[in-house]
């Protein structure tokens, strides 16, 4: 199974049969993700409009708070989510990243109504979940697939039986059920394992069954809760390829929750960073990863990029680099480093790259470079300091993000 992204009509489980997806706004036709989308989620705009959310949003959380009652008599109530607002568009892959315990799992379970918020509203395709009866929420869940870290396959059923289960729940008749199961198993490349039981499969194969099961009812939304966290890197990329195909070929909106930043980097169009139950930042993958605006997001994302020196590294660097140390964020513009070099040159500042890394995100460069800057008369001299300051000022005037690393304390 290759990671190809071209359309593969023969293995498209949604091909036959008319389907209510056709009249959903924004999902007809092709479903290519929109990597260029950079607009920040705006919640305040629609707060006044009660009831129906804008048609564009597939999933929408408005000021959602979820508090779990204290476990035991001595415990304190746990606030898993604190005033979370976010919006997921039709057909996109939306990543939610955060440390374990940041409330990520609670977030997905709110989206398919397995949890109800303590405060705030959850909209799914314009319908407000908390206002629905449990019966109506079950209907909503049949249009929402879910995959899990531990796969959660039914051990008592075969591979085909697992995939057929949601169809039985949805009362799809036997002949149609068999057809769809075969098509889905073909889609995930496990047609030959239909009559095996889950324990006969590898972890990656189990997750592929999980994906086939989640897609069985042709849902418009797929929730992935740490779906690759129990898999090795090779298997992870196979599963991500499959999710990407589901997104591009079937037009399924995907909300993927993970602590693995490389998973988010490789698949998400837009991303929200969750820290301590709050969304500290959200936006396009590139914007959030290349230029985190909050300290919390920078801390979480910096771990993925490893482009900035840690405090310990900085201390070591200072031993051999007495000049002023600044870190410059790499921008996605032509001849960026040539411009940097000429700025330093014109101010008579010597710039030595002492740390950094440049990677690629959604085909655009991302990363940062740490320089030791030395003025014409050496770092300590007043002229030198003046020239370095002038160079930094010039760069900032040009829109370059320059951070001066603090001098070592004590």
């Amino acid at each position, binding site marked *: 199974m290759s990671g190809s992204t071209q359309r593969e009509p023969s293995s498209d489980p949604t091909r036959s049969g008319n389907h209510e997806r056709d009249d959903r706004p924004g999902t007809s036709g092709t479903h290519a993700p929109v990597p260029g989308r950079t607009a920040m989620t705006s919640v305040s705009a629609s707060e006044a409009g009660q009831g129906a959310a804008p048609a564009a949003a597939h999933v929408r959380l408005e000021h959602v708070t979820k508090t779990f009652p204290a476990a035991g008599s001595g415990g304190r109530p746990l606030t898993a989510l604190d005033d979370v607002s976010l919006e997921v568009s039709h057909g996109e892959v939306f990543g939610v990243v955060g440390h374990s315990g940041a409330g990520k799992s609670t977030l997905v379970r709110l989206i398919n109504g397995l949890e109800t918020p303590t405060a705030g509203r959850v909209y799914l395709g314009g319908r407000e979940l908390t206002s629905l009866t449990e019966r109506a929420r079950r209907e909503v869940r049949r249009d929402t697939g879910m995959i899990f870290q531990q796969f959660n396959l*039914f051990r008592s059923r075969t591979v085909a039986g697992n995939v057929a289960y949601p169809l039985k*729940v949805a009362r799809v008749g036997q002949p149609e059920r068999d057809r769809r199961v075969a098509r889905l198993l073909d889609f995930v490349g496990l047609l030959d394992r239909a009559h095996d039981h889950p324990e006969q499969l590898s972890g990656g194969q189990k997750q592929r069954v999980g994906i086939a099961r989640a897609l069985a009812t042709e849902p418009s939304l797929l*929730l992935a809760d740490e779906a690759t966290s129990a898999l090795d890197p090779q298997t992870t990329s196979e599963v991500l390829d499959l999710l990407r195909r589901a997104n591009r070929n079937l037009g399924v909106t995907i909300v993927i929750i993970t602590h693995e930043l490389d998973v988010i980097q490789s698949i998400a169009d837009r991303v929200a960073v969750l820290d301590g139950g709050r969304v500290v930042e959200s936006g396009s993958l590139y914007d959030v990863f290349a230029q985190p605006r909050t300290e919390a997001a920078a801390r979480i994302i910096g771990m993925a990029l490893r482009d900035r020196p840690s405090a310990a590294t900085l201390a070591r660097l200072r031993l051999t680099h007495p000049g002023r140390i600044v870190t410059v964020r790499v921008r996605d513009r032509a001849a960026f480093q040539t411009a940097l070099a000429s700025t330093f040159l014109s101010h008579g500042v010597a710039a030595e790259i002492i740390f950094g890394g440049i990677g690629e995100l959604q085909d655009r460069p991302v990363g940062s470079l740490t320089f030791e800057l030395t003025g014409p008369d050496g770092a300590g001299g007043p002229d030198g300091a003046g020239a370095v300051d002038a160079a930094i000022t010039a760069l900032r005037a040009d829109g370059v993000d320059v951070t001066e690393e603090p001098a070592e304390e004590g």
Partner: protein
Amino acid sequence: MQEFLSNLSVYRDAIGQTFYIVLISMAAGGVLGLVIGLALYATRPGSLLASRPVFIALNVLVNIVRPIPFVIFLTAIQPLILAAIGTTIGTNAVTFALSIAAAFAVSRIVEQSLLTVDPGVIEAARAAGARPTSILVTVLIPEALGPVILGYTFIFVAVVDMSAQAGLFGGGGLGNFAITYGSQRYDWPIVYITVATIIVIVQAGQFIGNWLARRALRR
């Protein structure tokens, strides 16, 4: 031995009665116990149909009935047996009491077996939009089938044991045979033959139970 051979038809009838008592008690008690066990599981806090009052009521009821030794239980519920069967002695009276005793024993076994099912698969079934009652029947029971079968086998042995005790109450069956034709006449060969017969029944039941459980667990 001569005594035994002359009572061969009584012995055969006793075996038939034991099977009658045990099989009907296992069927009636098994179904009732399954329902109570499912209810115990489903109503416990945080479960599919969580209901604190129902759970506490069931839990207390099971805890009261289950530890009572069967012969005492049989005596204690005589008014109930009388109302249901019309008499407090004989095979049907014993079968009725045994069904109830088996049901409460089975309920705990079922509850414990269901608790071994990975909560993740229940989550998956809920995420697929299944109703709680449907999850109980189509997910939980199949997933817990191996332990449930072993549990029923355990109860089967206990029911054979209790049916023999019921012989003291004129309940018929092998226990009754061993007492009236064996120990009360000091005819020990009859006692030993009866004991051996009970051992064979228990062994056969255990063997069948193990075999079914292995098939369910595919091990």
